[in-house]
């Protein structure tokens, strides 16, 4: 905890003013903390002196739960609940880890389906991130528009696996359902519908002067600080570091698609400010649409269940697999002792690491900017606390 200093200031007229720092709590029920996060803020007037994030309000013992399951497949519903805004990406990382442990090669159709789902989910997650960010700053309309688009993605998911939020869709060795008839056409329709919408959002929100004034040159995260804090995902790319696991450590079939990661360029302010982080997400949605369209055109026919193992019983050993989730590097470290259930699962969740940089970048700013900074990091508390 920061020490609260008290000092007496003499004014020019000779009277004395007591001067002290104040500690206020932002959260855990604050709407701008995007969940149950408590920020203990030390302020001097309106200037933020220090921020201490307190987490753990949503801790559900995911890692311990995973050890008490009877098999590896049962962990997937729990993994879903880590990052409930991007559950497909979470499933993807976990099943890749277990598959690597088992040494399974999944059919090509499954790989394509997984990539399509993961990228659609990334768009849905970024829509929430951008929409609620606008809401934090004070723009209500884009939030509603973005949720309308997200609804179409959720409809696609619901038609494929029956669930809208927590899918349990990706299985070890495959996926639970094949694509339903009409999915490919509907998804292509969505891609066509969504592309012009991104421009609309840019007009409505990204290049809005009020929005720029609130976010540009606020919460600047320089390259070196970002790297030393282990930041990943859109936040890292917003700082101008060209690093995306889908390209730099390709997993699944990402090497087959033509796309490039987006990085922050500091168009309206400094590289690594809130606007850059936000804008990287907006541009990433376009790249995701590119990937989805290519995947939809190339998807081969085939059996989706051929590689699903009857009994998941990996040899003793451990494995670490990292994937690029909507929020950054999602890693799963799985240890097997040769039995049917995991001996230990450790998740490296991107939101948790990204959250750690909040004190560093919000010192010296205004309280109102703290809202902008917390929103631009796009944390999901289910994943921070697990």
């Amino acid at each position, binding site marked *: 905890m920061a020490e609260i200093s008290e000092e007496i200031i003499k004014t020019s007229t000779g009277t004395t003013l007591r001067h002290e720092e104040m500690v206020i709590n932002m959260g855990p029920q604050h709407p701008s903390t995007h969940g149950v996060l408590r920020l203990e803020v030390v302020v001097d007037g309106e200037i933020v002196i220090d921020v201490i994030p307190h987490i753990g309000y949503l801790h559900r013992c995911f890692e311990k739960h995973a050890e008490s*399951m*009877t098999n590896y*497949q*049962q*962990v*997937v*519903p*729990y993994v*879903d609940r880590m990052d409930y805004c991007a559950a497909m990406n979470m499933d993807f990382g976990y099943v890749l880890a277990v598959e690597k442990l088992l040494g399974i090669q999944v059919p090509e159709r499954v790989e394509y389906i997984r990539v399509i789902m993961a990228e659609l989910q990334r768009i849905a997650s970024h829509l929430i991130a951008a929409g609620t960010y606008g809401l934090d700053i004070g723009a209500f*309309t884009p939030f509603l*528009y973005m949720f*309308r688009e997200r*609804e179409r993605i959720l409809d696609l998911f*619901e*038609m*494929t*696996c*029956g*669930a809208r939020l*927590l899918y*349990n869709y990706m299985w070890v060795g495959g996926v*639970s*359902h094949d694509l*339903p008839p009409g999915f490919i056409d509907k998804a292509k329709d969505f891609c066509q519908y969504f592309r012009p919408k991104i421009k*609309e959002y840019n*007009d*409505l929100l990204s*290049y*809005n*002067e*009020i929005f720029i*004034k609130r976010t540009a040159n606020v919460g600047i995260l320089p390259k070196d600080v970002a790297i030393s804090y282990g930041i990943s995902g859109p936040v890292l790319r917003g700082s101008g570091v060209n690093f995306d696991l889908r390209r730099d450590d390709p997993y699944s079939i990402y090497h087959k698609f033509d796309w490039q990661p987006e990085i922050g360029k500091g168009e309206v302010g400094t590289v690594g400010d809130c606007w850059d982080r936000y804008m990287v997400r907006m541009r990433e949605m376009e790249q995701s649409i590119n990937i989805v369209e290519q995947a939809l055109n190339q998807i081969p026919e085939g059996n989706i269940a051929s590689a699903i193992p009857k009994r998941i019983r990996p040899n003793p050993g451990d494995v670490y697999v990292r994937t690029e989730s909507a929020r950054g590097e999602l890693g799963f470290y799985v240890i097997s002792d040769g039995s049917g259930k995991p001996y230990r699962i450790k998740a490296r969740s991107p939101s948790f690491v990204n959250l750690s940089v909040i004190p560093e970048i919000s010192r010296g700013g205004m309280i109102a900017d703290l809202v902008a900074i917390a929103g631009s990091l796009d944390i999901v508390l289910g994943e921070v606390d697990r």
Partner: protein
Amino acid sequence: MMRKYFIDIYKTIWSILIGMRITFGHLFVPAVTIQYPDVKPKLPERARNRLYVNMDDCIGCLQCEMACPVNCIEIETVKSLPTDDLGTTSTGQKKKLWVTKFDIDIAKCCFCDLCVYPCPTECIKMTDVYEFSEFDRNNLLYNFVTLTKQEVETVKAKAAEFEKEQAAKKAAAAAQAKAAPVVAPAQQSPPAQPS
């Protein structure tokens, strides 16, 4: 400084006008909001909502209970007598167990669909019923057993009796075997084993 001030004002008004243009355009787009309680959305075929168990087809294999990650399914079975005929499932499997308890605590259920896949007779499935909230938590404990309480008790008593009989028979057989002189060939097994 003064110039920048006016430029800011101009830019702000301009971006508000752009925003207004876009929102005005949306006035002429058909509404997407579904007036929920009055209008209900059509759920896709694969919708995963309330669980339903068709007890006519349940063979009491406990596969769904084992697959559940949150332990919301509780099943209890009792062996049927050889003389009982429990009928067959719609897939043609012969039923051998009385299912005396099949409770699903739907309040615990996480709707993951994992119980549906292992079922050999496809009798447990997710339906498209999604409006089942209750004021009392106990009402969410669904009881699927078709047997009445009395039937359950008679079945259990019968099974216990049968077991007792079997045990008595066994004991009698064992006593007889003991009483009988030791049979020489019974101890002559080692030569059969390959070295």
